[in-house]
């Protein structure tokens, strides 16, 4: 894969996006009937299913990545991701309203094409909203990288693996508070702020999409239940 040009001279990425463009997001709420809340999200080719209830677990389907291999559930990578998701939502859910109770979030990555954590957070947010659990704000997550002096938002698997820096951030978009921040590989200090700004901007854009999805879902539910 060496010598792959991540950003062309005219500013197009390998998949045809510009540096500041997100992948296509498609999402649905209430995909399971037996769960308290559930959601499905597609960010490009990364597809994640989230359900809220029961004891928590995070895993990846064996068929999710380009290369098929048996992936034991509960391996180190999954445990780390579980912990990250837990920390993220600890900060966002108003846990004080539900003393002595347990909220369980199931996240299943069906297909992985970069940004697994981000899609998982976004899916879980939708599922939590669907379940009616009080939160401070939406939690939106987005990744960003830095290639040829240009920050790139919402990076794909190809861009993740070609060695550049990867910055992952989860925010509460209204207050712009950062609830989670992770950085892989090295990035020069001076470049951090443009990359972070772009990732935060990406979170806001994702928020707009999710918000619209929630409104549509509520409107639809209202029609079905005859409230309108």
């Amino acid at each position: 894969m060496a010598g792959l040009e991540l950003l062309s001279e005219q500013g197009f990425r390998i998949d045809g996006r510009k540096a500041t463009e997100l992948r296509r997001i498609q999402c649905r709420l209430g995909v399971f009937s037996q769960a308290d809340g559930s959601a499905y999200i597609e960010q490009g080719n990364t597809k994640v299913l989230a359900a809220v209830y029961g004891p928590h677990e995070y895993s990846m389907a064996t068929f999710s990545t380009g290369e098929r291999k048996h992936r034991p559930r509960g391996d180190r990578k999954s445990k780390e991701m579980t912990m990250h998701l837990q920390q993220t939502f600890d900060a966002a859910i108003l846990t004080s309203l539900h003393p002595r109770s347990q909220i369980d979030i199931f996240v299943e990555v069906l297909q992985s094409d970069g940004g697994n954590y981000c899609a998982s957070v976004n899916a879980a947010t939708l599922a939590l909203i669907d379940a009616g659990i009080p939160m401070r704000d939406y939690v939106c997550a987005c990744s960003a990288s830095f290639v040829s002096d240009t920050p790139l938002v919402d990076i794909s698997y190809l861009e993740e693996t070609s060695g550049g820096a990867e910055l992952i951030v989860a925010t509460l978009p209204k207050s712009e508070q950062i609830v989670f921040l992770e950085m892989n590989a090295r990035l020069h200090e001076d470049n951090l702020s443009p990359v972070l700004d772009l990732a935060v901007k990406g979170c806001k854009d994702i928020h707009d999409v999710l918000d619209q999805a929630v409104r549509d879902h509520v409107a639809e539910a209202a029609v079905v239940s005859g409230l309108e």
Partner: protein
Amino acid sequence: MLEKSDRRLRLKNVHGKSVCVVREVYRREDIPCQSEACIARCQNTTITSGPPTLLPKDITHYVIPDPQTAREYLEIFESHHIRGIIFTQTAAHSVQHDGSRRLHSRLKNLIKDRRRGSVIFHNEFQTYAYCEREPGEKLSHWHVRATYKTADWYFNHLAASIPIVMVTSDEQFIHDFGHKTPNLFVLTMRDYLEGFWAQLVPEIMELYQSLHDSSKNKTKDVCEYVGYLPADILAEGLKTGKYIQGFINVNKSNSLQEAFIRRAKKDLTEDSGSDILISGMVARNRAVHGDLVVMELLPRAQWQGRSTGIQNPGEKGSGDNANVSDMMPTGRVVGITQRNWREYVACFSQDEEVGRGDKKAGKLLVIPWDYRIPKIRISTRQVDALKDHRIIVRIDSWDIDSTYPNGHFVRSLGKIGDLEAEVAAILVENDIRVQSFSEAQLLEMPVDTPLSPWTMDSEEVTRRRDLRESHLIFSIDPKGCEDVDDTLSVRTLPNGNTELGVHIADVTYFVEPGSLTDQEAQSRSTTVYLADRRYDMLPGVLSANLCSLVSGVDRYAVSVIWELDRNYEVVDVWYGRTVIRSQYKLFYELAQAIHEGIVDAEVVRSIPELHNLWGTELDDKVQELRETVDRLMQVARGLKSRRVKGGALELESVEVQVQLSETKSIENLNPKQHLEVHDTIAECMIFANHWVAKKIAETFPNQSLLRHHPLPKEEQFTNLNNCAASRGFEIKTSTNKELAESLDRCVDSKDPVVNKILRSLATQAMSNAAYFCTGVLPRDQFFHYGLALDMYTHFTSPIRRYADVIVHRQLLEAVANEKKKTTLPSCTELESLSQHINTKHRASQYAQRESQELFQCLFFRGRGTEDDQCVVDAVIFQLRVNGVLVFVPRYGIKGPVYLRSKQGEVVHVGEDGAVEWTAGQVIKMTTHVMVDSVLGQQKYDLLDHITVKLSLQDSWAHASSLRLELVSNLPLKQQPANMETVAKQQKADIIQEVTSEAVEKRLQLESYDLGQNFPQLKQEYGQSKSSLYEMFSDLRTSALQPPTT
């Protein structure tokens, strides 16, 4: 932001094993067409600084090659005649994946060059230009179809205003679509070239033919080369340390046997030498000099030694065991990471039988000019026409079953022996391109003709500090210099402090970043000075006129002005743009003479600026000038002593000036004189460069362009130590200060050459000074070893060095009041730029050196063996097992002198001075060589003076060289070029020189024929370099090429 279409594309991809991956592709309608003729107002964007490349609108057609054509005939598209090439993204990918990395980078360079007006079009992202590959469709067919779709899109997008030509090799497709739309042509490469270019550029057809032939012809030969290992095994082996990677370096004097690979630092272990030997063509396994190769170390039992004798380049290695050094690590090439093939100058063999390999097929071997390159097999039908020409050849491939690489003929440079052809060969070998400036570039230039003279913009003048009245500004340059880029001023301030000013031509005012002139200057990077001519970096109107700070006219400048206290401490420094008027344009010899106190009358006679003055006014002016020059030299001495205390090195060079007679021949080769005033100017420039470096590095810690000079390697000093020891001196090399001091102590009062040689050997030991971007190196590597400064850059010659132009922009941005968006290149851009400039500088230095050698040879060509100018004094500076290397102070030449001939006879100098060759042997010790023969023993010590005879060794295929033969083991009786006596003659010479200038002017002729009007050429091009630093780096370059290698 989200209004994009989204479809998926299935690609097959190979990661060692074949897997199927899904990648999303986003298509959009707003992919720009990048054409100036666009009527839909496409938005053109680019991620780099500077305006985007656009397809020009004033050309006859756009051409779109399909992927296969782009791969096979990229070289034709590289010809600068063809503009307006649209490469589809599909073609670019195909060049990268099915072609090679090198091919792809050539494509990228082509696109990057804005003069070419060629672009990559993202057809796979454009909704309407994309075409889906149908299931089961052949890749090549889909490529052709996708290209046609793009051509069709362009045709419609530009509303048929410009004809589009699609080039493909698919005959069926041409038949089907060739006549579908008028003005949208589908042609084969041959038809395209014949139709559009054959009339304008006839040689393009030859190039096509030879490319075409070479892709068809594969020669079968018997050879024992083995195949390369697959890439993943190589990568694995490199990781585990089983294999070693490095650039292959062929030994010039033994090119068939020896090649070396320098190990990277991290691979060095304590018991291994730094170089690895690759012995023989089989072990070299088709690697060509300069390739990045992967190699495997052989077991210790198979290690070999390198030969230590002096050999003539091109001669076969003798295989004599006596000439071989200790065993050294030996290896063989198992893979090639990157081919670094370039254009090679070559010629057909003089020997008919050898040259004609297979006449029917039109295939023959050519001998490259560079000894390190193997013979190349090319196909051509023009042998008879090109028999005695120097030609350019490119290597295409080197098959496993072929003894020699296959290549193709590119173009001819001219007849062998013709001065122009030889100079062109030097330029090509060093990859220097010197086409004249294009129309468009010249249009960007300000106009200055007698009809509409250039004037200063009054608004611009008010923005600048005006030094025209307040300062006495003057320049000191070599005689006849045209591009004056530095001027100086010095005065005493009311508070007793000294104000020193360095005023540099404001090139950046005229050259906008990203403009065509800027692009051209960047690609040239430096003005190239050859012995008899120069190739400017900037168009003449700038370099010789508007930027040149000649006397008596107002000019824009960038100034650095310091206030110095009595101890030459800097109290205050000011940087900024100024307006100046230089009052005197002095030359070195005159300035030195003024300082040494020649009478006023002489001063007045030599300075044209004073001719119109009389009486007391004249006396005052002369007095003022005298004082200023004295003051300047005093200040420079002060500055220098401070720097020398810090450990700056003073190094020595003997530069030779080619003195050409008014008619044809080269009259003499004169060593250049070194005057104190040279140091004065150099010191001021070093001071300015240093302070500018400080300023930009402080303002832009991440992206400023500096120049550093790393520490020399300890082992390089061995020869210097041996030489010094032979005369009982000791050289300490641990720090630059100690080295400078110990060099100063090595003075033999009877033999002034000793110190010079030791200094030049010290120069050889130095590493390369180089430009770098501050964001790339750690802070502690910024230093400049030779000048003993913590930071250094190049600021003072923007007319002839591109690095200075960048530094000017950085400095001006650093001192600008309003903070606007920076247009400076970013760290990564700057780093690649500095690499480019370094390469170009090195190339221009090599070219300069080679052209000097060419002229040396021309000088000796006409001379018989009896001419006393050919019998000269020489000093031994290095010992080999079959001879010694000597330095000829008279001409600044280094070369080998054989003490044992190829037949194994050794030389003996008899009592009467007669030289005899008899049986015997040569024994090499640390500080002397013993010649042991039947007639007795003779000893040659390091630094001994001997007498040698110079003669020309003509060569057909390569550069001619000089042969040195031993005449006597004693110094030459009367030394023709005794430095001291020449220096004393200097003063008398100046006056003579000034008067003869008028005579020279009369001799100027119109024609450009070299020879008849040498005075003119000499005046125009015969510049020397102005700074000590240049001299320093020159010497370093010459040191890079010791005479035997």
